């Protein structure tokens, strides 16, 4: 044991004892490991962030149909959904029924009608120039701010608005705020799948980067080990000394990672979208995960070092590398991704949210993406041995890769794995987006709509008037859903219909009505539904007057692209009626949708219209027709994905830079000699870039192929239409290649410095 400790200590001593160059090497290892540790600590902090946000969301959760004790103080409340500049603003109407009515967390006083308390982010937005079109949407009487305990995060846009217009029929009556949201907020299997893929994609490359970093300066270390062998160290001792050297870098990397994490935690909250924001105190790594990182990183680095030492024979008179002549074999490298494909079979056979399926999918993804890192060395080796001669820079690069492609491939494999994962992720996000936002609705006449208008026939006119008065609104058309009962009594059966009335322009939003004049009637029959026969009679006013009859001139029409009937398939038949066809009948209105035409020349016309709608009824939901149907969760995931991708690209870039610096340092004397011969620096620079570019190109090729296949599998899993986003894939691969080449180019000034004639001096 003492012997072991002494050998490890000697390794640590050697790692810091090499003078300036020794410290630089140690610094490079620490930087590589540190960057990886930072990413791992960020991942370890995510559960705490989610828990903290969930706790605060639970504390203000409104449990509908709450049992209220007799005589208990209560409040009526109703949700308000709104959007401003694509950001969701979700608030709540409060109508206390007694002075001691329950208050939501973060609110310290009862609100009188018209009084509003805002989240600080919403307050800032309203006070800024950006918030001009939002001002007045819910009144101006701001009486306070919501405290942090009432918000999921500092960037959340939310409010509580006092009102006196709620009734128990239109609102929830509460005795207390707060309840576990439970299954109501459980993620769907699709989102779970997304989260799993995202986690694997963002974290797996970190492991590869860390294992690459600990091999920095291995040639110099091998020479030191040979010197130790010369003075009597046996092979086992040299391995322990090497482990000691690596441990020093890993421990330093852990420290550096902790430091970087401390810096990242200050800004992390501001990097995510407002509705996913969190407080700095939420961003605390889970202790047991920290313990795992602290334990696993050094252990992994030592294992990587020992595995790398198996490739060399350290003898007293020098180091012999075994990899030189032995060709890499493909078959065992294919076993790992093949096992991954087998484990991913639930994607095709059926997805559920069970823990077993999740484990299988994570394991499958890890194996498949690890397979990219395993197959890439073979691919690069097999390819570069087939590359022919070219210019001097090309020859120097290709020959270098033929002699030892391992170093370059190690640097690139992390990038390849990242890109493969990102391509897959992009595929699934794009497919889900297409699934939920399949909106090709006609926006030539109307560009926005106001849904959930609770109005009677008289109020419809008022709505039309108020919306028309908003700046930027050029036209308003309403579609009214009518109460219809079959004449002769009885409820609407399996052949039930929806009757809706509106002018031709509005009906065109719902169905492909073609030529239409007032007095026309159309019937829209989804697949599988029965069409009501002409002559069917309906009572439209709840009884009393003569029934309305479906005229013989009724034409059938296909649903308009982007409508609910198209998206969902099936559903009841819809009868679309122009006002002229209802002459003499005063129907009872069930609900109203207003279609709004906006003046494109007026900036923020959509938000000005939303504000006008909210002033009539805050509960009405106004939205752009184009945006209708896009899942907001997906928007958030996209932004988080973007932040993760940027973080990964920064890691790729930093790792690549460190790698290039390390490789140049290892070869500085040779480079100086080449310059002494008169080799142009641009030849050397081109050679260095080509040494990176060739493996990167092959890595990206492999990554795009694997990622695309994986994306197709994931699309099958979420039952999305199979599609391939070439532009997205090209952008991802292109940006990754650009980051790599730019960071490599950023290392070239060092090349020029290293190739100064002083590099030849040995004294």
């Amino acid at each position, binding site marked *: 044991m003492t012997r072991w400790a002494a050998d490890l200590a000697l390794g640590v001593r050697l790692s810091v004892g090499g003078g300036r160059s020794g410290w630089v090497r140690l610094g490079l290892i620490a930087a590589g490991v540190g960057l990886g540790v930072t990413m791992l600590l960020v991942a370890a902090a995510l559960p705490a962030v989610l828990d903290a946000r969930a706790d605060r969301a639970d504390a203000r959760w409104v449990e509908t149909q709450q049992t209220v004790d007799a005589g208990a103080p209560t409040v009526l409340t109703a949700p308000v959904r709104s959007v401003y500049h694509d950001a969701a603003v979700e608030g709540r109407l409060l109508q206390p029924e007694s002075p001691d009515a329950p208050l939501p967390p973060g609110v310290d006083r009862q609100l009188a009608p018209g009084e509003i308390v805002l989240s600080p982010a919403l307050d800032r937005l309203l006070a800024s120039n950006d918030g001009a079109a939002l001002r007045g949407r819910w009144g101006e009487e701001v009486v306070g701010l919501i405290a942090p305990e009432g918000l999921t995060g500092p960037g959340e846009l939310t409010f509580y608005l006092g009102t006196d217009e709620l009734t128990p029929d239109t609102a929830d009556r509460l005795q207390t705020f707060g309840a576990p949201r439970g299954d109501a907020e459980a993620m769907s299997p699709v989102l779970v799948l997304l989260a799993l893929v995202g986690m694997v994609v963002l974290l797996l490359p970190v492991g590869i980067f860390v294992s690459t970093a600990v091999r920095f300066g291995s040639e110099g270390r091998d020479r030191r080990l040979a010197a130790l062998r010369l003075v009597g160290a046996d092979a086992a001792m040299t391995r322990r000394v090497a482990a000691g050297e690596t441990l020093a870098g890993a421990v330093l990397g852990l420290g550096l990672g902790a430091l970087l994490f401390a810096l990242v935690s200050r800004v992390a909250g501001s990097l995510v979208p407002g509705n996913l924001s969190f407080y700095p105190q939420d961003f605390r790594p889970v202790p047991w995960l920290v313990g795992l990182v602290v334990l696993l990183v050094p252990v992994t680095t030592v294992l990587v070092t020992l595995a790398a030492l198996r490739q060399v024979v350290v003898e007293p008179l020098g180091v012999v590398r075994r990899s030189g002549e032995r060709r890499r074999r493909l078959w065992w490298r294919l076993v790992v991704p093949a096992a991954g494909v087998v484990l991913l079979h639930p994607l095709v056979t059926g997805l559920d949210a069970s823990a077993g399926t999740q484990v299988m999918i994570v394991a499958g993804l890890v194996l498949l993406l690890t397979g990219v890192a395993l197959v890439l060395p073979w691919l690069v080796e097999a390819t570069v041995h087939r590359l022919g*001669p070219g210019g001097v820079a090309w*020859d120097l690069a290709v020959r270098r890769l033929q002699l*030892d492609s391992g170093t370059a491939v190690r640097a690139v494999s992390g990038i390849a794995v990242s890109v493969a994962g990102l391509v897959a992720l992009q595929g699934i996000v794009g497919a889900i987006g297409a699934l939920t936002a399949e909106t090709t609705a006609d926006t030539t006449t109307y560009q926005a709509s106001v849904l959930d208008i609770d109005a009677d026939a008289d109020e419809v006119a008022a709505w039309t008037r108020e919306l028309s008065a908003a700046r930027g609104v050029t036209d308003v058309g309403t579609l009214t859903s009518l109460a219809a009962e079959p004449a002769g009594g009885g409820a609407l059966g399996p052949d039930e219909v929806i009757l809706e009335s509106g002018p031709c322009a509005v009906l065109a939003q719902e169905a492909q009505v073609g030529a239409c004049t007032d007095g026309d009637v159309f019937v829209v029959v989804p697949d599988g539904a029965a069409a009501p026969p002409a002559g069917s009679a309906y009572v439209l006013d709840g009884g009393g007057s003569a029934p309305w009859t479906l005229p013989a001139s009724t034409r059938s029409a296909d649903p308009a692209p982007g409508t609910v009937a198209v998206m969902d398939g099936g559903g009841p038949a819809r009868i679309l009626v122009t006002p002229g066809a209802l002459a003499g009948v005063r129907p009872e209105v069930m609900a109203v949708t207003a279609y709004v035409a906006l003046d494109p020349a007026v900036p923020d016309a959509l938000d000005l219209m939303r504000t006008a709608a909210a002033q009539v009824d805050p509960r009405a939901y106004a939205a752009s027709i184009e945006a209708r149907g896009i899942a907001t969760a997906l928007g958030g995931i996209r932004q988080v994905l973007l932040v993760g991708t940027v973080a990964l690209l920064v890691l790729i870039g930093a790792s690549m830079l460190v790698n290039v610096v390390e490789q140049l340092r290892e070869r500085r004397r040779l480079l100086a*000699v080449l310059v*002494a*011969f*008169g080799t142009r620096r641009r030849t050397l620079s081109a050679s260095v870039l080509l040494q990176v570019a060739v493996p990167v190109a092959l890595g990206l090729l492999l990554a795009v192929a694997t990622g695309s296949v994986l994306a197709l599998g994931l699309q099958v899993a979420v039952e999305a239409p199979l599609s391939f986003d070439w532009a997205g894939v090209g952008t991802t691969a292109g940006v990754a290649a650009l980051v790599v080449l730019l960071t490599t180019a950023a290392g070239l000034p060092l090349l020029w410095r290293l190739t100064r*004639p002083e590099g*030849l001096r040995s*004294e």
Partner: protein
Amino acid sequence: MATEPLLVAENLHLRFGTTVALDSASVAVHAGEVLALMGPSGSGKSTLLHCLAGILHPDAGRVTYAGRDLTAMHDSERSALRRTELGLVFQFGQLVPELTCLENVALPLRLNGAPRRAALRSAAAWLERLEVSDVAGKRPGQVSGGQGQRVAVARSLVTRPRVVFADEPTGALDSLNGERVMQLFVAAARETGAAVVLVTHEARVAAYSDHEAVVRDGRVRTMEHVR
């Protein structure tokens, strides 16, 4: 020798930080002659060689090559000169490890823009001349030190330079191999008419020179005619 010297260093001064490497060092080399720079470790002989080859730029003083002031030239001009008219041999060969020996020898020609095939043909001829044709297809890591050094000599001569600079060319070889390398090197250089500036601390190596200069504390102390 009545002709003008091909290469002249006059009053060269160079410091590395606080260390004085050259202190008013002067030396001259004529076309076709072999000059040995001798001296103990750290005396400044390699630094003087690097200044003569235009690799290092002195703080003061002047190096003139064929009437052209090397110290006034831009780095790219000096690099071009090293590609075309000067050759270099180092103690450990310093061959590019990923290229074969044949490709290593052809490299200076290719850097000069020679077509690949022509460069390889010339390189093969030089390997034969240095008696190492058998290692043409091998990489430097696969050949012995003596063979590698002969490949390095071939590389330094392949462009038919007017001056070859050799920094301890046999320092890493045993005496037998060192002798053979020097015989082949000097014979080939004389045959092509190249001048040789040789840094060594071995008398047996210096014996191949026409002149000897002793460098001590950055100064060229004496200059003797050996032959």
